[in-house]
């Protein structure tokens, strides 16, 4: 039981996935999506095991007075703080949290939609799915204005956002544009769809207002998010740790590659065997394509393009075919239970 059941499970889930590949029906696709979701959910439970492993190893180092003990404390402190920020429960309705950039985009979108409705959609043939008539347009304009004002109010009253220098000015411009939109409704009194000249003139006016409104909205990019301790992934401290601790270290580790690639090239140069020389020559030909080399420039460009297109393609294809076979053989060994060291012994 201890040994046989897991092997049976491997076999059944493996064979199921292979068969699923050949069955295009909807339920088969759904089963596939569910199984993938399952593995992701199990992965999160596993992550808890991972965190446990990290804590255990760090604690062990601290307890045994390992030379890295004090750094292990740093790890545990970072872990605990970030978990504390990340698992803070949303203080209020999580669905209602918006970013400043999001609110800004909503305002601009509302203006753009108003402009499009008045200039384009009212002229589309009536059976077109996007077309609207004058009555609909009249009903929609105040809705766009309402929506804009809702977001402006959010900017003014919410403590999620922190203001910028010209904030009041730009918000006033946005509100003014929204009011103008609302006022335009009266202009459509007695205008019919056939009256294209009037519709065109009014459309031009509305699109002018909308452009001004959207521009003012885009100037609001000085407003930033601050919602201290809202919780979850939106927590201010969680984001601050991510943006000012994780991102800089990550980017710096990545950029170390610039130094390492140089030392690796030197290592290849020192090796002085035939194969590493071939490798280096190909590398220099491809690298040289960005250099200005007088009369040689054209030749080097052509040569490096050829190397990247032709031998490169051939070798990649040979590797792909081999890798494909390796994957198929390994999968088969796993499904058939030939390869099972990962399942433990007893």
């Amino acid at each position: 039981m201890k040994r046989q059941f897991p092997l049976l499970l491997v076999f059944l889930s493996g064979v199921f996935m292979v068969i699923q590949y050949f069955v295009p029906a909807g339920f088969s696709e759904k089963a596939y999506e569910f199984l993938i979701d399952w593995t992701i959910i199990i992965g999160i439970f596993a992550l808890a095991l991972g965190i446990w492993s990290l804590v255990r190893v760090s604690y062990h180092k601290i307890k045994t007075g390992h030379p890295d003990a004090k750094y292990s404390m740093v790890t545990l402190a970072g872990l605990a703080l970030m978990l504390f920020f990340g698992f803070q429960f949303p203080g209020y309705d999580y669905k209602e949290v918006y970013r400043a950039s999001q609110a800004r985009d909503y305002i601009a979108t509302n203006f753009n939609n108003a402009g499009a409705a008045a200039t384009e959609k009212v002229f589309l043939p009536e059976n077109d799915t996007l077309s609207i008539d004058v009555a609909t347009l009249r009903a929609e304009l105040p809705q766009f204005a309402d929506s804009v004002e809702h977001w402006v109010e959010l900017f003014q009253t919410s403590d999620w956002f922190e203001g910028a220098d010209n904030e009041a000015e730009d918000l006033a411009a946005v509100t003014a544009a929204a009011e103008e939109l609302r006022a335009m409704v009266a202009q459509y009194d007695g205008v019919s769809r056939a009256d294209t000249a009037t519709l065109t003139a009014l459309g031009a006016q509305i699109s002018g207002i909308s452009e001004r409104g959207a521009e003012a909205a885009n100037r609001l990019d000085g407003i930033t998010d601050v919602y201290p301790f809202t919780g979850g992934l939106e927590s201010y401290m969680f984001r601050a740790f991510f943006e000012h601790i994780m991102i800089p270290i990550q980017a710096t580790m990545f950029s170390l590659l610039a130094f390492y690639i140089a030392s690796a090239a030197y290592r290849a140069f020192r090796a002085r065997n035939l194969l590493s020389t071939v490798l280096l020559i190909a590398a220099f030909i491809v690298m040289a394509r960005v250099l200005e080399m007088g009369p040689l420039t054209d030749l080097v460009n052509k040569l490096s393009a050829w190397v990247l297109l032709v031998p490169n393609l051939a070798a990649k294809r040979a590797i792909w075919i081999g890798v494909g076979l390796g994957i198929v053989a390994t999968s088969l060994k796993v499904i058939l239970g030939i390869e099972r060291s990962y399942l433990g012994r007893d």
Partner: protein
Amino acid sequence: MANSKNLMRIISAAVALAFVISWIFKSMNGMEDTTWLNVRQGALVTIAAFLTLSIYSFLYGDNPFYRFAEHLFVGVSAAYWMSLGFWSTIVGNLVPRTHPAIADFFQIAYSQDIPTYLRLIMIIPVVLGILLLLRLVPKVSWISRWPLAFIIGTTAGLNLPRYLQSDFIQQINNTFITMLPAWEGFGSFFSNFSFSASGQFAMIMSNIVIFVGVVCGLVYFFFSKEHRGWFGVASRIGIWVLMITFGASFGYTVMGRISLLVGRITFLFHDWLNIL
């Protein structure tokens, strides 16, 4: 030993002082208005700069600054992924499919349109996940192999036909190329002869190189036949083609890596020190 410890303390103190000064300068930058914002932004940028330099100190060798940044990074990032996994997968993916009360508790929209049996089915991964946690109980830790067996079996079954298609059959298909593109007879071939990349001669040669490259590359990967005689020659050509490819790939990456370094230097000198 004691001396080096003292030296380390002095260096640490000096570094700390330097960064505090940098923080003060950054905070003073806009003292007239929103001071608190500048103090906070200054602190964040200073921390980021300190961590950046700490990581670069690895180029000199292992040292306390690198160790600090490394250990902090490990702790913070582990918690970051745990939180992300919890909110996006457990709350975002699983909770909406469970029960309205649970969805309400997490303040997330409940999926209405899922039939009951599909809701019940979502209990299975939770059970498997809990079985996995039983690893921590030595007596029943063997049960934790069940979810592992499920995941590995699914992976194997998923990859087997799909890689057979994309990495094997599809690649064979792509190798069926005409050796002689738009051939119009020897007369035309010689009268229009040129070495240009789009010319017929170059294209024929390229196709032959691709063909030979694929064949020799594959020969190199043969395991159960001795690489001697003709087979050895082909395998030798194969490894040469592989090395040319690796070189090309190496050369192609260099510029990208240098631009990453430029990015970090810009951060240090522009965002932090304001001198670029």
